[in-house]
């Protein structure tokens, strides 16, 4: 898959239309994980619109998003940045292939910084 294909896939998965964004930055203004993230909610929207998804997929920002949906809630244009973050996360997980999280490995991953809720969500989603 080309980078463009990944972008299309992310948009399909999330149902996000980045062209609706009017670049107000309210998502990032409201984001509680802003400082932990290399790329911020508005950048997810902007970069995917521009076809630059690789950097996002490689970024640890994916796992610092709390999925709190405040950006979705606050967005005046219904753009839903968190859904996009979630889609990129899914694409990344998929690209890892069958090498998915096993129940036994979860305990080892728990640390102070990673929210437990995120781990559980990822576990449910990627462990079939």
């Amino acid at each position, binding site marked *: 898959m080309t980078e463009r294909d990944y972008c299309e896939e992310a948009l399909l998965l999330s149902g996000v239309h980045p062209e*609706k964004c*009017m*670049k*107000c*930055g*309210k*998502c*990032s*203004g*409201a*984001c509680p994980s*802003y*400082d932990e993230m290399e790329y*911020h909610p*508005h*950048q997810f929207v902007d970069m995917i619109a521009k076809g630059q998804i690789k950097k996002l997929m490689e970024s640890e920002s994916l796992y610092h998003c709390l999925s709190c949906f*405040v950006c979705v809630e*606050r*967005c*005046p*244009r*219904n753009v839903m940045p968190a859904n996009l973050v979630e889609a990129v996360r899914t694409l990344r997980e998929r690209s890892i292939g069958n090498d998915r999280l096993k129940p036994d490995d979860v305990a080892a991953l728990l640390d102070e910084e990673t929210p437990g809720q995120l781990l559980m969500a990822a576990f449910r989603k990627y462990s079939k």
Partner: protein
Amino acid sequence: MQRIGVFVCHCGSNIAAAVDVKQVAETLKNEPNVVFAADYPYMCSENGQQLIRNAIKENQLTGVVVCSCSPRMHEATFRKTAEESGLNPYMVEIANIREQCSWIHKDRMTATAKAVVLGRAAIAKVRLNAPLTAGESPVVKRALVIGGGIAGIQTALDIAEAGYPVDIVEKKPTIGGKMAQLDKTFPTLDCAACILTPKMVEAAQHENITLYTYSEIEEVKGYVGNFRVKIRKKARYVHEDLCSGCGVCTQKCPSRKGGNEFNLSLDKRGAIYIPFAQAIPNVPVIDTEQCLKFKTGKCGLCQMNCAAKAIDFSQQDEIVEQEYGAIVAATGFNPISLDKFGEFGYQTYPDVVTSLEFERILNAAGPTKGHLERPSDGKPPKTLVFVQCVGSRDTSGRGKEYCSKICCMYTAKHAMLVREKYPDTEVYVFYIDVRTPGKNFDEFYRRAVEQYGVHYIKGMVGKVYDDGAGHLMVRASDLLANEQLTISADMVILAAATEPDKTARSLATMLTASMDTNDFFTEAHPKLRPVESPTAGVFLSGFCQGPKDIPETVSQAGAAAVKVIGLLSKNKLKSNPCVARSDSLVCSGCSNCEKVCPFGAITYTEAEVNDGTGKEIRRIAVVNEAVCHGCGACTVACPSGAMDLKGFSSNQIFAEVDAICR
């Protein structure tokens, strides 16, 4: 036998690009009754119209079909063209092959085929058209302006100056509207009161203007030139004619708990009050919700102290009935409620205020006498954060999807005024875009940035919260720096989106004027008839038609006035001849049509009828053509089909259906 001419317009390439206009003309030429068909690049141009005029004369046409743009665009044009060649203007039908064909269908064959069908339907209809003659009705030479803000005042003054009597109905106790609440005006920074109050006084004193303040529209009947309006004058409990405006009553009133509406409840007023010092009329009004006399039956201090004996607790609402030739809606706007925007803390923190509240805080006649003090503790704020687009351009359902237009400029104004008077403050403005298309507007905004050092930050505030130590924390993004900021602010000022006044919707229903989904009045044409409602005789002034600043409002107010003057200068109006008619031979006199007529245009009479079976006195329906608007509700209520609509007769519609389904 009709002799029909078909004229197919290319509309440059607007139609011709998608529709094979030559083929449409050629095909339609073979339709029965069609004796002439032609195509032309611009049928609405003088040359195109000349083509039609010549064809009518040379071919003795009795009917004309123009295949062109929407009839809403040029039906009137082509009717006039036909009339100039001696053909009855109502023998013209339009087939809409632009908006409803060439613009939406890409496939040339499909579009051409559809254009032919639409043309056939129009031919089928015109075959059954009959010449119609417009009736005439007199014009009442008096205008009504609903709303006493700057829009209403300016419209009324302009009409009055032209010599026509005009009434202003304002629901608040004083005229002046929103502009009266403003401190300074952009981009000149002159004092709002200084330029508005003279106009208010002029309106009050003008011999042609009658003010109905604290009044509402109760009922509107009639039609262009002949509206009959009921105005409810709400009881003030103070006789306007007796009151001297001394204000003693307002000082004696022991109840001080009411929020002062004029200052947006930033301070209190008595139960009997004059909204503000320059109010017109300068007559108090009693707030019965708050007045002790009304609540407990005891008190009456104001009455005892009124030397003019103007106070009357038994006063009742009064209904005034008046006839008008034209009505102007100038109902204005309000900031939206911020209930749905909890993230800004407006409901929680007293130091988060709206821009209109801030306007009052800055005003010398406001709650702080013009001193910049924050509401919570009266201390002068050192850091101010302005947030733009609060609810504007919002499609999430919480706000309004349109741009409120005035916020960029008034925010720049506020920022500048603060920095000028209090140079030791820090002022931040969070913006999405700064929109300054207007004379001297961008210069004004740049002055705020360059001269006054206002910090403009591209980004939006995500949250306003309390840091636990009594400081307001503003968390926002700085998109250009790709940073998230947290600013400790003393005050936050929200540029709340604007919306049309709530009363506009019910008024529009009474006026039968249409509105858009945002409750702005719809104009008859967005470009060419911006101050007229599609409802004849109803005109639009100011914000009620769409967001506007003061200069725009004033110029539109003048334009609306000119339209009203133009209407009132006529002695007679031609009425729409496409009205209902009752066939006396078929009418059974059952009254069903009368019951559904929205205009009371149908009456009954006993008349002698001879339907071929002998003379008989029957009860039959009679349509008052001047009152009928031609909606056609009666035609369906009539089971016998006695009631029909001229210009849209049942047989014409059947013919259209048949032609389309052929």
